Structures are given as structure tokens and as C-alpha cells.
């Protein structure tokens, strides 16, 4: 087989996954144009593009994306750092583990989204409530994976550290933390999923700004194009966050055979 036809074949293989989505969108477009689906149910793909352009030009869309991203980032930062700290603390110090882990596991079993009514009472519909919910949502995956990662540190390596007279701080930075890092990064990826999920729900229920608000507001006026646009923005932001986490893994876990590229 010639090299050229091989290249062609591999191109077809790579592209074949995109065939169905393209066909579906094409069918959707045709269906919307011919009135098989009314725009109240689902707008035509081009209408969504129009909505995106209009909202971008007015600055509303960027504004809302910015606000949502801030909430997400703030919650991730707060919940993530508490989760990381407690995970490290309980993973390393047995007494801390004894006193704290049971409580944390009990709280974990409360679905954090069930707290929304209470959170509205506590914080109103301001920023704090949403950041609080996101922080709560990202806390557990980061906590649990950090804890697990620390517990999985190889006792053989720890013993080796003893042979080399490493002090506790060196043991932590050289052996314990790097051992836990792959697990912590898995926790981060889970946390990013929870982050967007929590934000979507929180913004839909009680808010006056953000992507969720944009969608709920559009629903009042039956602007299905904006609603679908908001959904797509969420999807895109989620994908971006996941890609960022992936790049972080590739960078920090270069040593790991499973993450080596090329």
C-alpha cells in the first residue's frame, strides 16, 4: 500500500468519529428550516450562532461568562485548598485522621445541592452562596483523593528516605507529596466536573447574573437560541477546564510512564 493511501486511510479513521455529529447538525438545520421542529422547541443552528454574535457584541455574554468563571474559580480555590490541606493533614497525621475523618465522611454523604434552600436563607442570592456551594462541591473529591494518595505512598520509598536521613519536611516534599500527586490530580479533574455542575444548578435557581441567569432569563422570553447557547457555553467551559487539568497532568507527571507523550 502506498504511503499516500495510508495517510488517507488514517485521516478517514480520525475523521470518522465526526461524521455522525455533522450529519445530526445538518439534519437539525434542515428540520428547523422546513418547520419540522418549531424554533420554540429547538432553534436552528444558525440562529444560535446569531444569538452568540449579538450577545457578544452587546457584551452581555462575556460579562456573564466572566462572572460565572469567577464564581467557579473562587469556589475551586477555597474548597480545593481546604480539601488539599485536610487531605494532607489526615493522610499524614494519624491523630488528626482519628478526630476528623469520621465527621468529614458523614458530611460527605449529604448531597451538597440539597443545601441550596438553606444556602439561600444564609447568604441570599449574592455571590457568597454560589461560591460556598461550589467550594463544598469541589472539597470532597480533592479531600478524598489527596487522602488516598498520601496513604498509597510506597512504604519502601519511605524506608529508603529514612536510610538517607531525610528530615520530616524532606520526606514530605521528596517522597510523600510526589507519590500523592497523581491521585490529587485525579481529584482535581473530578472536582472540575463538580464545580461546573454545582454552578449550573446554583445559577439556575437563585441569581441575577452569570450564564445560568442568562439561560433562565431567556427562558422567560422563550428565546430558545440563548438557552441552547448557554448550554453550549457550559459545555465549552467544562471542556476547557478538563483540558487545562490534562495539561497540568502531562506537565507534572512527566516522570510517570503512563503520561509520557511521544
Amino acid at each position, binding site marked *: 500500500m502506498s504511503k499516500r493511501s495510508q495517510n488517507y486511510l488514517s485521516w478517514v479513521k480520525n475523521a470518522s468519529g465526526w461524521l455522525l455529529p455533522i450529519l445530526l447538525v445538518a439534519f437539525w438545520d434542515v428540520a428547523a428550516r422546513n418547520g419540522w421542529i418549531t424554533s420554540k422547541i429547538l432553534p436552528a443552528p444558525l440562529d444560535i450562532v446569531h444569538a452568540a454574535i449579538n450577545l457578544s457584541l452587546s457584551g452581555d455574554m462575556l460579562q456573564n461568562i466572566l462572572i460565572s468563571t469567577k464564581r467557579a474559580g473562587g469556589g475551586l480555590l477555597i474548597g480545593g485548598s481546604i480539601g488539599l490541606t485536610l487531605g494532607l493533614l489526615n493522610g499524614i497525621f494519624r491523630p488528626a485522621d482519628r478526630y476528623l475523618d469520621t465527621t468529614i465522611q458523614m458530611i460527605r454523604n449529604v448531597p451538597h445541592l440539597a443545601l441550596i434552600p438553606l444556602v439561600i436563607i444564609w447568604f441570599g442570592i449574592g455571590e457568597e452562596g454560589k461560591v460556598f456551594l461550589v467550594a463544598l462541591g469541589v472539597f470532597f473529591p480533592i479531600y478524598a483523593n489527596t487522602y488516598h494518595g498520601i496513604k498509597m505512598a510506597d512504604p519502601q520509598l519511605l524506608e529508603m528516605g529514612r536510610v538517607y536521613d531525610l528530615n520530616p519536611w524532606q520526606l514530605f516534599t521528596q517522597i510523600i507529596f510526589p507519590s500523592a500527586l497523581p491521585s490529587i490530580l485525579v481529584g482535581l479533574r473530578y472536582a472540575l466536573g463538580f464545580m461546573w455542575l454545582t454552578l449550573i444548578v446554583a445559577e439556575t435557581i437563585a441569581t441575577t447574573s452569570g450564564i445560568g441567569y442568562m439561560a433562565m432569563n431567556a427562558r422567560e422570553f422563550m428565546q430558545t437560541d440563548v438557552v441552547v447557547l448557554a448550554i453550549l457555553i457550559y459545555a465549552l467551559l467544562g471542556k476547557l477546564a478538563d483540558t487545562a487539568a490534562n495539561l497540568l497532568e502531562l506537565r507534572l507527571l512527566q516522570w*510517570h510512564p503512563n503520561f509520557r507523550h511521544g
Partner: protein
Amino acid sequence: MPIQNLNIRRECNVYPASNYAKPKMKVVEKVNQKSTSGIEIKIENLSKSFGDINVLENLNLAIKPGSFVAIVGRSGCGKSTLLRLISGLDQADVGTIYYDGSQHNAINGDARFMFQEARLLPWQSVINNVRLGLNKAEFPKALNALKQVGLESRADVWPSVLSGGQRQRVALARSLVHEPRLLLLDEPLGALDALTRIEMQNLIERLWRELGFTAILVTHDIFEAVALADRVILLNEGKIDLDLDINIARPRQRSDMELNRLGEEILQRILTTPVTS
């Protein structure tokens, strides 16, 4: 077959190490006489048990500074336990270990331990693994140590891309960079293929002769013990069953008749000793 140039002492190891009269041997010629830098070890009445099992029972042993001692025996005879006690990684139930006449309790910079696994940090490059526990000013030493084991060209790769033998060479470099006066080897060559083993044995022997540390090697491989050591100690059920001086001039040929005869002798002794537990 008559036994001439070796002393077999079959003992129930009940007398203290101070009375332990080890016949003088003077065969080993060192490349450079730095044997004074090796640690002298004395072990008195050492016992260790795990639960109901007595792993070591009232063991006495004296090891000359700069000598190369191999400890052999069946699995579970207590040889690894003995090595871990000597290092200070584990504590004995009863008995004392002396380094150069003073009591030794916890592992310190004088002794380095090589495990069966290389135990390199997978997230550090080879050179950074060798630098473990060094301060910045001493970093140049790490590259020298890598040169000693012939791996300076792999300084910047991750350990995961190295072969098993190369990893153990890095572990050896990491041990030697601290200029230990005692090197404890817990079957570090056990997982290597036959050819790599021989290369590693030669490397360890060469570095031991150059650097003059005391070396204690725990091994399953009787012929490895005989080829490398000045003295082979056979442990059986926590007691010294046989204590042989190997007075064969270095560098030793693996095909040496005497060496093979001694190996066979020890092997037969192990095989004919009944296993009670």
C-alpha cells in the same frame, strides 16, 4: 576432600563476641589500603522474634573493618533480619550492636543500605536521585558517583526508562555518594539476569576494593557469596551454622576450582541440614 585453606567453625554461638578468636587471614590485597575507613562491627547476644517465631537467637558476630562478609542461608533463616538489625532500620529484642566499639541504635550516615529493589524516586531524574540527602555544595559528588558506576550519560533521564541493572547501579551510586563506611546489601542483585549480575558483582567488588568500606552482603546465591566475600556466614534458623574464610586471591576467576569447591561445600551443607520449622 581435605579442607586446607579455610576454617570451618561450627558453633552454637553461645560465647560472647569478645572471646571470638577469628584466625588471622592475610590473603586479600587491597588496591589501596584504605580499609581503616571501614567500620568494625561487633554483635553481642542478638535476638529477634516476630510473634512466636524466633528469627534470630542469641547471635554473636564480629566483623573486621573493611572486610567483605556474605551471609547466606535458606529463605527465612533470618539473614535479612540480621542485616536490618545491623543497619539500625529495625531494633533487636535483646542484644547490642557496636560500630567501632560504640553502641549503634539508629541508622545514620555511616551506613548505607541497598535493597533488593533499587527504590529510586520515579519523579526525580537519575542525577537527582543520586543527590538525595546531599546539600547543594555537595552536588558535584553525585556526578562523580554516577561516573563510578558508568552511568554519567544517563544522568538526566527518568528512572523508569532504565533497565533493572542500571537502576541498581544508580542505587549503588546513591549509596556511595555519601562515602559510607559500611555498605549493607540485601540481595540487591536478586532480580537481575545472570549477565547483569556478574557485571554488578564485578562493579561492587571493584568499588569495595577502591573505597575500603566494610561490606555485608545477604544473598541466596552461594557462588556469588564465595566469589565476592572474604568470609561467608551460613545462617540456619537464626543461628550461625557455618563460618568460612574464603582465602582466594583477588581478582577471582569465576572458574576457579577452589572457589567452586567451596561453593559446593556450603550448598551441600544447606541442603543436608534438616528443616525443622
